[in-house]
C-alpha cells in the first residue's frame, strides 16, 4: 500500500509537469483554435536555457529568466510564422507549428551537444520522508509549483482585464473585436503564456536526470492529456495531465509484475492507451465542449 501511494505521488509530480504543458496547448487552442505542435521544442529550449543560465545567475533567477526568454521566443514565432496565417484552415497552421518545432529543436540540439546537461537544481534525486512514505523532493516541488502557477493562472483569467479579453476572444473572436479587444494581442499573449509554462515544465523535466536531445518526447505526453481533458478546457488540461501522470507511474511500478507480456517500457505508451479508451467513451474528452452541428 505504501508502495502504491509513493507511486501515486511520483505520478502526481510528473503529471503536474504534463499539466503545465497541457495548459500551454489549451491556452493556444482556445485563443487560435490550433494545437501548437511547437510546444515540445519550446520545452526543450526552456530546459537548455535554464542549464546555461544557472551557471551565471544561480538556479532560481535562471528559471525566471529562462521562462521570460522562452516567452519572448514564442512571441517571435507567433509573429513571424502564425500571425500571417490568420483565417487559413487550422490544419495548415497546425502543420506549420510542426515545421517550427522541427526547426527550433535542431537549433536547440546544437546547444545541447551529445552529453546530458544538468539543471543545477536544489532537489536532485534527494528523498524526503512524509510520515511512512519516502518520496523524492522534486515530485513535491513539481506539485507545489504547478499548484501555485495554476492558481495564479485562474486568478488571471478571472480577475484581470487581459484575462477577460482572452476569455472574450476565445468565446467569439469577431464579437470580441467589435468590443475593442485586440485579438492580435490575445494571440501573442497566449503564445507567450504557453512558452512561459513550457519553459518551467522543461526545467522540471530536467531535474534529477538532466536534459538531452531525446527529452522532447516527454512533451508529447501532454497531447493525450489535453485530449483526455478536452481540448478547450483549462481545468480538463490539469485533470488530464495528473491522470496521465498517475496511470503512467502505476504502470511503471506494477506492469512488470502483473502484466509482463505487455513488454518492457510499456509505461511510456500508456498515455496514448488512456487517450484511446477515453475517446471511445467520450469523443470530446472528459470536460471538452461538445461541438454543436448546425446546418
Amino acid at each position, binding site marked *: 500500500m505504501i508502495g502504491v501511494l509513493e507511486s501515486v505521488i511520483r505520478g502526481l509530480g510528473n503529471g503536474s509537469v504534463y499539466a503545465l504543458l497541457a495548459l500551454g496547448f489549451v491556452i493556444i487552442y482556445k485563443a487560435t483554435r490550433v494545437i501548437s505542435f511547437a510546444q515540445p521544442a519550446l520545452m526543450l529550449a526552456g530546459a537548455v536555457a535554464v542549464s546555461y543560465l544557472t551557471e551565471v545567475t544561480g538556479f532560481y533567477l535562471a528559471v525566471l529568466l529562462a521562462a521570460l526568454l522562452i516567452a519572448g521566443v514564442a512571441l517571435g514565432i507567433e509573429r513571424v510564422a502564425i500571425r500571417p496565417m490568420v483565417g487559413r484552415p*487550422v490544419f*495548415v497552421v497546425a*502543420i506549420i507549428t*510542426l*515545421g517550427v518545432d522541427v526547426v527550433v529543436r*535542431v537549433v536547440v540540439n546544437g546547444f545541447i551537444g551529445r552529453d546530458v546537461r544538468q539543471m543545477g537544481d536544489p532537489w536532485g534525486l534527494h528523498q524526503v520522508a512524509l510520515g511512512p512514505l519516502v518520496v523524492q523532493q522534486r515530485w513535491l516541488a513539481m506539485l507545489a509549483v504547478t499548484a501555485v502557477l495554476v492558481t495564479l493562472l485562474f486568478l488571471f483569467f478571472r480577475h484581470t482585464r487581459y484575462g477577460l479579453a482572452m476569455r472574450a476572444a476565445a468565446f467569439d473572436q469577431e464579437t470580441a473585436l467589435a468590443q475593442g479587444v485586440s485579438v492580435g494581442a490575445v494571440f501573442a499573449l497566449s503564445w507567450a503564456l504557453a512558452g512561459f509554462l513550457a519553459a518551467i515544465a522543461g526545467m522540471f523535466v530536467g531535474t534529477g536526470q538532466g536534459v538531452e536531445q531525446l527529452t522532447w518526447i516527454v512533451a508529447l505526453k501532454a497531447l493525450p492529456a489535453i485530449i483526455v481533458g478536452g481540448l478547450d478546457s483549462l481545468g480538463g488540461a490539469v485533470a488530464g495531465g495528473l491522470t496521465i501522470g498517475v496511470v503512467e507511474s502505476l504502470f511503471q511500478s506494477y506492469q512488470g509484475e502483473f502484466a509482463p507480456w505487455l513488454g518492457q*517500457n510499456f509505461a*511510456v*505508451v500508456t498515455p496514448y492507451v488512456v487517450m*484511446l479508451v477515453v475517446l471511445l467513451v467520450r469523443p470530446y474528452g472528459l470536460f471538452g465542449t461538445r461541438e454543436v452541428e448546425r446546418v
Partner: protein
Amino acid sequence: MTDTRSTAKAEVPDTPAGRSRRPRGRPLLYTSYTQDMALLDTRAKKIWTGLLVLLALSLSVVLADRSLEVLAGAYVLAIGAIGLNIVTGYAGQVSLGHAFFVAIGAYTAAAVSGPRGGEHLGLGLAEIWIWLPAAGLVAALFGVLVAPLATRLRGLYLAVVTLGLVFLGEHVFKEWDHLTGGPGVGREAAVPQLFGLPLDQDGFATKEQQLYVLMLVLLIVFAVAARNLARSRIGRAFSAIRDRDIAAAVIGVPLTRYKVLAFGISSFYAGCAGGLFYSISGYVEPGSFSLLLSVQFIAMVLIGGVATVSGAIAGALFISLLQPITRSLPELLPIVSADTTVTPNVFQVETVLYGLLIILFLVFEPRGLFGIWIRVRTYWKSWPFSY
C-alpha cells in the same frame, strides 16, 4: 465554357460516348461527358505524360546504379504519398499515423517473404505478387480498424489520435523481436522475386536497373488507380466530405462508410509502399517508423500539392532528392560538416530544410509544386495578358 458544352450536346444528341471528336485548334472544347471525365483530357496532357514515362524508362539505361537506387526509393515513397493524399488531401481526414501503416506493410511483407523456420517469423513465400497484396491488405485491415475512431472525431482530435498510433506501433514493433529483430538489430526485408526470378540480384540487367523498372511500373499502376478513384463516385464523395462533412451527409453521402473506405485505401497504399521500400535496401529496423517518417510524408503531400496525384509524386521526388543534395553539401560549403558530432552537420541541415520548406510552402504557395506549375501554365496560356 459550360454553355458551349451544353449547346454542343444539344446539337449532336446521339454522339456515341467516347467516340466524339474534338474540333481542331480548340483543345478546351468538350463535346461529350466522357471527354470531360477522361483521365488525360487534352492532347497536350496525353503527349507530355507519354514523353515523361518514356523519359523515366530511358533513365534506367542512362543513369548510374547509385542514382537509380535513389530514384527507385523515391518512386516507392511516391506511392506512400499518394496514399496519404487520398485520406488527407481528397477526404480531408488529417492523419499523422501514416508511418504506422507503412511499418505494418513492411513487416507483413518481410514476414510473408522471409525464410521459413529462420531466426525471424517467415512464411517463405518470396513471390512479389503474393507479399505485395498481402502487405497492402493487412495494412488496410488496420486502417479499417482505426477508422471507427476517426468517424467519431474531427480535425485536430483525429490528428492527435493518429499521432498516438505511431507511438503505440513503435512500442509493439520494438518489443516483438521475433517479428522485427528488435531495436538497433532489425531483420531482412521482403525479397522482390518475380516468377522465380530474384530481382535483387544482377540478372539480365543490374540489380538497381531491375528494381528501378519494377518500382516505376508499380508507381504508374498505383498512380493511375488513384486518379481513377478520384474522378469516380467515391472520389467525389471524398471531396464532399472534405469540403463540409455535414453538407455531404445532408446530400446523402454515408459519412462512416466513406471515411472507413478512405482510411482503408490510404493504408493499402501505405502498406504496399512499406513492403516495397525496404526491399530495396534489404533491411528493416523498427526505429525507422517514428513520427519523423509521418512528417516526411506530410511534407511530400504539402510540398507537392494537396489533392493531386501528380503533386504527390513531385513532392516525393523533391523530398527524396533533397537527401543526396544535402549530403553533398560539405564539399560545397565547408561550414557544414558531414560528421554528426559537429554542430552544423548535414543531418541537421536536412531536418531544418524539411521544417522550413513546409512553412515556406504553406505561407507562400499553399498549392505546392503543383500550384507553381499551374501559375506557370496560366502565365503562358494567357500571355501577353496577365489574366
